């Protein structure tokens, strides 16, 4: 199956898809047919089908490998196949619109088949006019201007910086959007309040349950600059304040930034013996980035991110050492309990995805090189500045025919012992993704 799918990938990326025969044919356009095509229906249904095989070269000495696979080790390489669909639909009735996005995927790996169905978003919008809308249901707010990270996304799940354009799962909330336009330097003012309940059966992954939280964003387009002021208040997480901006300095150069202040954040110190000490302190997270387009259609995105919620590199080293000890103990005695402190941390919100404090992100993508239409090769790297480990992600994107998107990507973490990328569970990963939209 693996060989077949990678062959399909190679064939697709080389462009051997069926082509039309009429090279010199002059198209004719029936204008009345086009009038029919653009007629609107009150409902809509669409989405995509996906095939995504992945091959990983695992590092069995890595603490993250040991943490994940200590009771069921897959060996040196791991094949994973992901098959499924994303289904989207909308229904409109007067000023009301209902929308839903459902992910339904089957994954096959060394452990067999696993299925997962997730309601990514599902909400109803009441929109009496362009100046106002009210949403109720599960939805994503996507606050912030950063490409790879968004420290001011106070009511969203964190993005995956290795795939920042991928759709996220939302939270159940009640939200509004109130917009006013003006003449003069202040062109737009918009207020976006959000009410986010967190209870046992609703949004319980967000934070402490049993509370109703509020958040809001005030947006202004002032002197051709996007500006946002944001806040979050509630008992599920501590109070947060933030701001962001985005502006085109030149027609081909955009700069953006975000800053977030987090009150009473629980900083952790992970000791070598597995004990976790916490202390409350106010922390800052911030991001500064730019997007630049060259005359040759090369787009560069560069971002620096300071993660105020990150841990000290020494704490990460202590975690790695502790996991290795827990793994050895488990192998000798079968005792799993030593993994407890690490698993508790993960459950309480600690993320192995960019856990340290300072990062650089660079993405270079070249549109349609060598006159190959709809072909975009790209190269991305994420550098951990605290230990100078990094990952390299070359990729090829191609859309040879309408509604078919192909992506071939490699991910190679590079770093020394006890560094973030040096201790990833894979030494390398190759993935191919085929999406057919309908």
């Amino acid at each position: 199956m693996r060989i077949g799918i990678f062959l399909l990938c190679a064939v697709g990326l080389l462009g051997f898809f069926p082509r039309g025969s009429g090279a010199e044919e002059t198209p004719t356009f029936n204008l009345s047919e086009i009038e029919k095509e653009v007629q609107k229906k009150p409902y809509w249904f669409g989405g995509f089908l996906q095939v995504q095989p992945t091959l990983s070269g695992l590092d069995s000495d890595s603490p993250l490998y040991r943490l994940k696979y200590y009771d069921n080790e897959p060996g040196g390489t791991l094949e994973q196949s992901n098959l499924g669909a994303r289904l989207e639909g909308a229904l409109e009735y007067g000023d009301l619109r209902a929308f839903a996005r459902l992910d339904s995927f089957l994954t096959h790996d060394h452990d067999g088949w696993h299925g997962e169905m997730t309601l990514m978003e599902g909400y109803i919008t009441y929109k009496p006019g362009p100046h106002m809308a009210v949403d109720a249901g599960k939805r994503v707010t996507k606050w912030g201007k950063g490409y790879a990270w968004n420290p001011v996304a106070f009511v969203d799940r964190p993005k995956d910086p290795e795939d920042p354009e991928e759709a996220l799962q939302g939270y159940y909330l009640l939200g509004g959007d109130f917009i006013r336009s003006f003449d003069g330097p202040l062109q737009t003012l918009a207020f976006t309040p959000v009410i986010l309940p967190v209870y046992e059966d609703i949004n319980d992954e967000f934070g402490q349950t049993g509370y109703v939280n509020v958040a809001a964003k005030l947006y202004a387009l002032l002197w051709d600059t996007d500006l946002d002021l944001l806040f979050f208040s509630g008992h599920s997480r501590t109070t947060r304040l933030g701001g962001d901006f985005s502006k085109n300095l030149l027609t081909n150069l955009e700069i953006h930034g975000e800053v977030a202040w987090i009150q009473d954040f629980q900083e952790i110190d992970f000791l070598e013996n597995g004990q976790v000490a916490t202390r409350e302190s106010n922390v800052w997270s911030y991001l500064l980035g730019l997007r630049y387009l060259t005359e040759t259609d090369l787009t560069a995105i560069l971002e620096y991110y300071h993660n105020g919620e990150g841990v000290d590199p020494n704490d990460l080293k202590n975690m790695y050492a502790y996991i290795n000890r827990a793994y050895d103990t488990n192998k000798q005695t079968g005792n799993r309990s030593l993994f407890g402190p690490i698993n508790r941390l993960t459950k309480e919100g600690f993320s192995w995805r960019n856990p340290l404090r300072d990062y650089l992100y660079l993405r270079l993508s070249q549109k349609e090189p060598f006159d190959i239409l709809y072909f975009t090769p790209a190269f991305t790297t994420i550098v951990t500045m605290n230990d100078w480990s990094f990952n390299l992600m070359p990729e090829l994107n191609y859309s040879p025919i309408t509604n078919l998107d192909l992506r071939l990507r490699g991910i190679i973490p590079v770093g020394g012992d006890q560094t973030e990328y040096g201790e990833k569970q894979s030494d390398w990963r190759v993935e191919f993704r085929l999406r057919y939209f309908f």
Partner: protein
Amino acid sequence: MFKVIKLLTVLALASVPAYAVDGNAILAQVDKRLAPESYEMYRKLVNVEPDGRKKEFILFTVKKGTDKIAGLFISPASDKGRTTLRLGENMWLYIPNVGKPVRITSLQSVIGGVFNNADILQLDYGAEYDVVKVDDLEKEYLLHLKAKTRAVAYDRLSMWVDKEKTLPTKIECRTEADMLIKTLYFKQIKDFGGGIVRPAVIETDSPLYKGYRSYMIFAGVKARDVPDEAFTPNFMPRIESLR
């Protein structure tokens, strides 16, 4: 003495052309003939590759005044729901998956191929260009246009305008260094109703994409006044509701 003055006056008047062509006035007429100042329209964009393969997009557009325009892709499925917004020199792209408006530039292309964002989010020619020279040809005017700011995708345009219809027949788009980027050919004049009679097809070729051709086909062009709030980044996810 009186006869001499009269003779000199006649000679002086004779040395001035019977009329001076006002290029900017012609350009204003062209803009007015192409679309009302505030409108809605549908456009089908077709990229045709040298081997005959086609890729088609359908775009719904609303425009207001001289500096506000927004677009929504309604097909193909892979691009459905993408919206673009232009407020003066500010441009944003909203992709449903990404979930937030991202600033873009006029030179980028959200669809690939010959069309770039400036073509999709084009304002009135008179809002972006000054006429610096007019050549009076037999049946056409040749207007030489220069961009008012550097934010415009093409620094210079050469526009051939049919004298009788006051509609463009051909536009060459050039860089500041006078390099030809693309040529637009205006075809198939159609009566869209409401007094709007304009070319329904614009064919494009480019020396940068040899053998490739692109077509923009217009449908449902009509005057419409949309509230200013529809031209804001916050409204981008809901442009569909204007259809």
